[in-house]
């Protein structure tokens, strides 16, 4: 029943502060993803939980017990690093069985668990192979199976699906989630892939420059991002600069470039304030003409298709709005089926409530959104 808590953790490497006064709690049996761009401190954070990195400041608790000085092997956690170090002279099955064996499980039991885990990772047929006969993606799954086979109650996974082909990655993320749920473990999973984080976790901690920018359910992170960076990094969106023209009781009127006016539900920003409007690509609808716009209260803007791309379940269009701003729109394929041709004039429309409004960032918009 491991719950985990970090309090005011600081970790520096020379002049670089990798983790900057970070606090977070993870409940027993919770599945938490740590999501952030390269260099945001994700791996350092995971190693702090594991006991492989010692914090310069702050406290780490597992089940309310201070573990700052507790060696890694006593923390009851299993850490699966990104660089999967398999034993080259052992077979795949032996590699996986090593996990439970090292924890004092008898051989018969260890082998049974190992076989089970390999089946789950769709590698049952490669049990007798040596690691170097496998692809990188397969080796990663062996390492993951070895970690899972230990039956540790706290799983620390660093990009566990990172080396896999995209299609397999989707398949396995659901399996991983199900396994964690069924075996009642607490899981901390590091990834840079926001779709993966959304699909598997109970909560997502969005990390940037060693700080948590938002820690909430996937639904909240996506629907109510606390900052422009989170909106950009999780799900992506259109970001339009604007000035508040008028503020009413329940709505505000914003002025985009070239005096183009839109209505938004937000009333938290003052008149004349510089703001950024965020509209998710799938909330920006397009219609071939004004009479084909859905009924309801919408902002409508004329535009012209610049490019179109088929993504599978969505079709994406880049559109130049009448005021020169460029936006991206995503339409479910079942609704459109055929991409619109380049150069076509369209009506872009969206609900006032689908526009999120943020103050213009002090460091500038492009720096705020930068993902390294």
């Amino acid at each position, binding site marked *: 029943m491991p719950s985990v808590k970090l309090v005011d953790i600081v970790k520096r490497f020379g002049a670089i502060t990798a983790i900057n006064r970070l606090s977070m709690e993870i409940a027993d049996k919770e599945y938490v993803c740590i999501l952030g761009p390269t260099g945001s401190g994700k791996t350092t954070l995971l190693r702090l939980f594991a006991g492989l990195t010692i914090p310069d400041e702050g406290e780490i608790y597992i089940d309310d017990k201070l573990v700052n000085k507790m060696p890694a092997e006593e923390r009851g956690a299993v850490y699966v690093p990104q660089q999967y170090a398999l034993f080259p002279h052992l077979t795949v099955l032996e590699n996986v069985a090593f996990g439970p064996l090292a924890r004092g499980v008898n051989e018969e039991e260890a082998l049974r668990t190992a076989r089970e885990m390999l089946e789950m990772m769709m590698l049952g047929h490669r049990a007798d192979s040596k690691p170097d006969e496998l692809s990188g993606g397969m080796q990663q799954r062996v390492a993951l199976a070895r970690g899972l086979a230990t039956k540790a109650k706290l799983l620390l996974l660093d990009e566990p699906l990172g080396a896999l*082909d*995209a299609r*397999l990655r989707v398949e396995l993320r659901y399996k991983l989630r199900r396994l964690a749920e069924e075996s009642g473990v607490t899981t901390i999973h590091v990834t840079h892939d*926001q779709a993966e984080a*959304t699909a598997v976790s109970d909560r997502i901690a969005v990390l940037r420059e060693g700080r948590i920018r938002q820690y909430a359910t996937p639904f909240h992170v996506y629907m109510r991002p606390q900052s422009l960076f989170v909106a950009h990094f999780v799900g992506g969106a259109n970001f339009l600069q604007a000035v508040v023209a008028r503020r009413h009781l329940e709505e505000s009127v914003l002025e985009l470039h070239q005096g183009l006016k839109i209505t938004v539900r937000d009333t938290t920003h003052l008149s004349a304030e510089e703001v950024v409007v965020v509209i998710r690509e799938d909330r920006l609808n397009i219609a071939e003409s004004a009479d084909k716009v859905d009924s309801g209260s919408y902002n409508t803007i004329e535009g012209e298709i610049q490019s179109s791309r088929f993504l*599978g379940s969505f079709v994406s269009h880049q559109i130049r709005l009448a005021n020169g701003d460029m936006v991206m729109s995503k339409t479910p394929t079942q609704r459109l089926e055929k991409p619109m041709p380049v150069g076509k004039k369209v009506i872009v429309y969206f609900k006032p409530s689908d526009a999120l409004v943020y103050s213009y960032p002090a460091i500038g918009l492009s720096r705020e959104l930068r993902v390294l």
Partner: protein
Amino acid sequence: MPQVQIVGLTKRFGSIVALEDVDLDIRDKEYLSIIGPSGCGKSTLIKCIAGIMAPDKGKILVDDHAIGNVPIQHRRIGYVFQEIALFPHMRIIENVSYGPRVQGQTELSAKALVNELLNLIKLSDRVNSLPMELSGGAQQKVAVARALASGSALLLFDEPFGALDSKVRADLRYEIRKMTTDLGLTVLHVTHDQEEAMSISDRVVVMKAGRVIEDGPPLQLYLHPKTIFTANFLGEANFLRGRVIQQTSTGAVVQVEDTHLQTTDKTREVGQEVIVAIRPEFISVARGQGDKNCLRGKVVEIRFMGQAVRYEVEIAGGRTICVEHPTCFGELEIEPLDEVTLTTAPQHVMAYSVPEQGLEKELQLE
């Protein structure tokens, strides 16, 4: 105006067949992607074209000239791969102008082209930086510019975005595609990422076990794949076993469990055992009884996925069907354990012969 013809290309590594009699045409100015699971031969194919590997059999023709005996440096083919391979001690400008300089061009004549390319990738202000001072995405753009500076009009991309964060990758692919279109290049792009392939290409080729399985424009391949392997590889799909019970003017009716599904597939015969495939986003879920083309079941899991909400529904026979409901269509008042009806349209019901080696084996991703 490079067009490429690959004829009967075969390559073996010991007992492993990497390429088996592969025929493939790449049209002038086409952006062609090859996808397939790891080990399908896609990288071997691109390495043979680049000249890094020699095929055992077969021919590669570029603009009707066989290039089998042409050494790498004379093939005028740009090659960009996953590991970013810039010269770490050279400034960006030196990296990009490297090709023209070793080809013996004068500093001056190379300069115009190099400047144009750097302008195109929007890195003109970083010409004096060293590679390590740039982000991974920017470095990979420099690698593309360097490949182009040698005057290649045929570009080979081998997982060019593989080492980059997913967010950076998505932005970069559109930039690269625009650049290659503007310059009128012919591109062959190998990737394991179906969305990347579909969004960037004019045509996608699917490979498996050293062979080309099928090819087509992304939309056609995704909506009407000819093979069950492609149906699964290009995106998620639900697979159900059934039997054709009727042929109609618009297709056929398939009995699945205790229900009937219509398909627009006209190639199926009455009595034939088939596997029906339906993508999660082409199924709608609603409470209550349905009418035609529907399955009944119980919701066992609901997950919010950002652009879609994913429902897992257990139907008769214990099978689980996945449904993805776009969030922009509005919230559904459905909760776990609700009894629901799943509905789809005949054009989204894809039907296939039952694979001889079994479904699981046929769909195997490696």
